[in-house]
């Protein structure tokens, strides 16, 4: 069986402040967002988070059997960034390593992959690193994205255990919504060229290029409202539980307004519902581990608690799982 053993996270030093007098800023619940340096990549942040985790002495670097790296900002097209991280962290060469490209649902999928590796006897200790630097993709004159995203990374240690601490899972994918959260240029479908750098204003006055992040906010909002309650219902059915059986709820920290709308719709008690984004914004795949770590530190989640985790976003992709907290 599998358990989440430890979490650490790391932010860049630089930060940007959202205009406190802007009405939207208040509703989004995000005051500041950390921004990576020009020469600081997602893997750099991930390595810092991992080093913090090893410094705690819970696990030696040599004990890691598998490294999973979730990012949408790899260092290179190739090689795999996880291989570069293995070398920089000085993990042993008999350790498996791979990248996977998911965003806001990435942590849930990372837990699932780790559980699969552990429970099929392929690994005992898995290091899941989640890191993203959306600030490098966002145009600062696009209010649809620039107020939301912050850079950050988390390192999560997942290990074999005698108690069941991870799962079950419910997954969801809807590629018809790929166009609602996308960077058009820079991949193989639309290679980077001079046209990809031309700034265009949309009908709302937001400015973007083809190589910037585009988000159709209302479509994404509606997707979350439509799919998240259904996916949670599926998990409850799978587990034969009700919402009352969970001590705490950690959803992907998209923005406070969307989280509040979801919370109301599902009828979840405010005191059991994590909102942890005021200082760091939406850090994509790291929002859930950051929030989880903070809720534990603040004493809101205790040993033995059953926590429901929900990731949803770019892909469109979503995932729900239950975890049990053990020291």
């Amino acid at each position: 069986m599998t358990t989440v053993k430890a979490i650490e996270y790391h932010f860049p030093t630089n930060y940007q402040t959202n205009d406190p007098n802007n009405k939207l800023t208040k509703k989004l619940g995000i005051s500041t967002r950390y921004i990576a340096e020009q020469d600081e990549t997602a893997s750099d942040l991930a390595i810092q988070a991992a080093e913090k985790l090893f410094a705690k002495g819970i696990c030696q670097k040599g004990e890691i059997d598998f490294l999973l790296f979730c990012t949408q900002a790899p260092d290179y097209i190739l090689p795999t960034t996880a291989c570069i991280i293995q070398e920089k962290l000085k993990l042993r060469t008999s350790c498996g390593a791979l990248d996977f490209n998911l965003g806001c649902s990435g942590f849930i999928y990372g837990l699932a992959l780790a559980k699969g590796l552990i429970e099929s006897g392929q690994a005992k200790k898995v290091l899941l690193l989640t890191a993203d630097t959306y600030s490098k993709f966002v145009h600062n004159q696009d209010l649809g994205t620039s107020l939301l995203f912050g850079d950050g990374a988390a390192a999560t240690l997942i290990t074999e255990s005698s108690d069941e601490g991870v799962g079950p899972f419910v997954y969801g994918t809807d590629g018809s919504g790929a166009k609602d959260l996308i960077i058009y240029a820079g991949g193989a479908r639309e290679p980077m060229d001079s046209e990809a750098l031309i700034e265009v204003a949309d009908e709302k006055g937001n400015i973007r290029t083809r190589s910037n992040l585009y988000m159709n906010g209302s479509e994404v909002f509606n997707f979350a409202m439509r799919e998240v309650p259904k996916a949670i219902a599926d998990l409850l059915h799978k587990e034969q539980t009700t919402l009352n059986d969970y001590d705490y709820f950690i959803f992907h920290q998209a923005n406070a307004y969307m989280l509040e709308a979801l919370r109301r719709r599902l009828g979840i008690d405010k005191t059991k519902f994590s909102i942890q984004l005021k200082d760091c914004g939406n850090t994509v795949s790291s929002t859930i581990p950051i929030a989880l770590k903070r809720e534990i530190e603040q004493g809101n989640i205790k040993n033995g608690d059953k926590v429901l985790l929900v990731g949803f976003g770019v892909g469109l992709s979503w995932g729900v799982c239950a975890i049990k907290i053990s020291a």
Partner: protein
Amino acid sequence: MNLQQFITLCEEILEVEPGTLTMATRLDSIDEWDSLTRMDLVSYCDDKFNTTLPVEIFRDTETFQDVIDKVKPYLYVTAYEK
């Protein structure tokens, strides 16, 4: 969803006193009226009344009358309403 249900829903979401929304109400006079609230309104109609509206339906609206005009094709009319 009928007209009265929709108006009541708007009053709840926009956090205004019941009965204060008139057809002449200018939306820019309501603090709560912004892009996030417009999204919320669409998803509430779906959730509460199974009425699926286009996501950007309320984008170019100035008065509450404009909002009602946009939503009208999606309302069912009870036998006693005009």
